[in-house]
């Protein structure tokens, strides 16, 4: 068994003057303290990557900087799925008895450490270097392509997609660490600047500075344990040109495997933390995961189903769309918030029941998927 014993996260937005290592260190310190541990007790380190300060050995760069000497350490790179992929690996490392306390950490000064163009350009490199990148696509364009097809096949509309941006903003309003604090409406999303149609500015997550971390341990370190109940991955392609049909994407495959590994059904889930780089990402993933029928996720947003007091509270911190997206840390915020909800520490955002949570991460262009179930145990 493995448990998420501590979480830590900075505010997302601007951290002028902070390096990626600074943001990683801040989050790591918070997570270790939250677990009630000391640095010396950390024997495993898994970290993500930094597009601002790329390094071939980021985990040991961080370990040296932070002042730990782990028995197991390396970086992991699966794009937006990295956070949950690291958690899955930590879970297995702990279960295998290789380490006792794994620090999972990432942080990046992606907003202030480079120009927005440089950031957009760096990310566009997930495209094929010969057959895609010379055409000048951007990450929003890759997802814009997917959105156009999804809308065509399932009758989803642009105002439907806008609902997800509005919901994430509404949730972010009650989190002091979120990047955005101004409420928005469907009309605001529809009127926002076109980026890569059908996606407009408010359909896209921002670029942020921030850091997040958690500790995965063999035993709980406090009264309420948050156990990794089961998890699984699926990787169907890298490039959008090589993606399978919409009905064969990896989210459904990872989810089916995770349900089997965890022995839980979708009806057992009380809280959802789902990757939301764009409104279309969230809409598609909710439907792929079975949290809504095909083409019906937006209607569920409108009915309050995914709200804080709804049947399936979703990304109550505001998600990538409104809490912010600092690279790997972006989706790690989903797990940090889930942990706070499961341990009854989410304050004014607290939901009634988060006893079993479903988390899902997506990297590339719906390329890499990790589904995970967490369970509260006493």
């Amino acid at each position, binding site marked *: 068994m493995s448990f998420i014993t501590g979480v830590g996260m900075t505010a997302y937005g601007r951290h002028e003057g902070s390096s990626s290592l600074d943001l990683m260190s801040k989050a790591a310190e918070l997570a270790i303290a939250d677990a009630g541990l000391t640095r010396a007790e950390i024997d495993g380190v898994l970290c993500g990557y930094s597009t601002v300060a790329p390094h071939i050995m980021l985990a040991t760069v961080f370990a040296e900087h932070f002042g730990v000497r782990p028995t197991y350490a390396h970086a992991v790179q699966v794009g937006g799925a990295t956070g949950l992929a690291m958690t899955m690996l930590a879970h297995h490392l702990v279960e295998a008895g290789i380490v006792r306390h794994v620090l999972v950490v990432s942080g990046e000064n992606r907003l202030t450490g480079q120009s927005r*163009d440089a950031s*957009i*350009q760096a990310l*566009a490199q997930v495209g*094929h270097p*010969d*057959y*895609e990148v*010379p*055409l*000048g*696509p*951007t990450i*929003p*364009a*890759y997802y*814009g*392509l*997917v*959105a*156009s*097809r999804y809308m*065509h096949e399932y009758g989803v509309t642009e105002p439907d997609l806008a609902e997800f941006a509005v919901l994430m903003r509404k949730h972010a309003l009650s989190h002091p660490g979120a990047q955005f604090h101004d409420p928005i409406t469907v009309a605001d999303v529809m009127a926002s*600047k*076109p*980026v*890569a*149609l*059908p*996606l407009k500015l408010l359909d896209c997550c921002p670029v942020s500075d921030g850091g997040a971390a958690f500790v995965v341990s063999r035993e709980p370190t406090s009264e309420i344990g948050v156990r990794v109940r089961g998890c699984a991955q699926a990787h169907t392609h890298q*490039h*959008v*040109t*090589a993606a399978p049909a919409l009905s064969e994407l990896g989210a459904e495959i990872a989810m089916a495997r995770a349900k089997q590994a965890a022995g839980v059904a979708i009806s057992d889930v009380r809280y959802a933390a789902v990757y939301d780089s764009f409104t279309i990402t969230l809409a598609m993933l909710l439907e792929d995961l079975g949290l809504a029928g095909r083409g019906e996720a937006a209607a569920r947003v409108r009915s309050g189903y995914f709200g804080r007091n709804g049947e399936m509270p979703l990304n109550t911190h505001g998600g990538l769309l409104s809490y912010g997206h600092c690279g790997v840390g972006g989706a790690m915020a989903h797990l940090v918030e889930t942990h706070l909800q499961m341990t009854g520490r989410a304050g004014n955002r607290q939901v009634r029941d988060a006893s079993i949570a479903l988390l899902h991460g997506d990297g590339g262009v719906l390329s890499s998927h990790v589904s995970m179930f967490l369970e509260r145990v006493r």
Partner: protein
Amino acid sequence: MSGSKPALADWIAGEEAIVYQCCAACGSSQYFRRSFCRVCGAPDPVEKHASGEGTVYAASLVVRAATPQARAHVPYNIVLVDTVEGFRMMAHGDNDLAIGDKVTARFVQFAGRLVPYFEKAK
């Protein structure tokens, strides 16, 4: 690529052509060039010129570009086209192309490079 069979030049090499590979063993076609078939692993897939005919699978009009060179072209339409030869490719296209449109390829200059460009079949 296998040393014995030189690659056919295509738009990536600045030639007005779309090239794909076809596996002699299993018949699969693939667009991204490799020295083997991605389905069955057989070596040396046969290179062929595509007709440039296909159907629009998806489209996204890029209004916010990431580089100064690309910015000079906005808005430009990025499309995924399912070719009659059975492979999918990314290209540029007319701004008003819709999913399902039958299209044919020509070639245009974009950011200092030759790129395939689809317009409605006449």
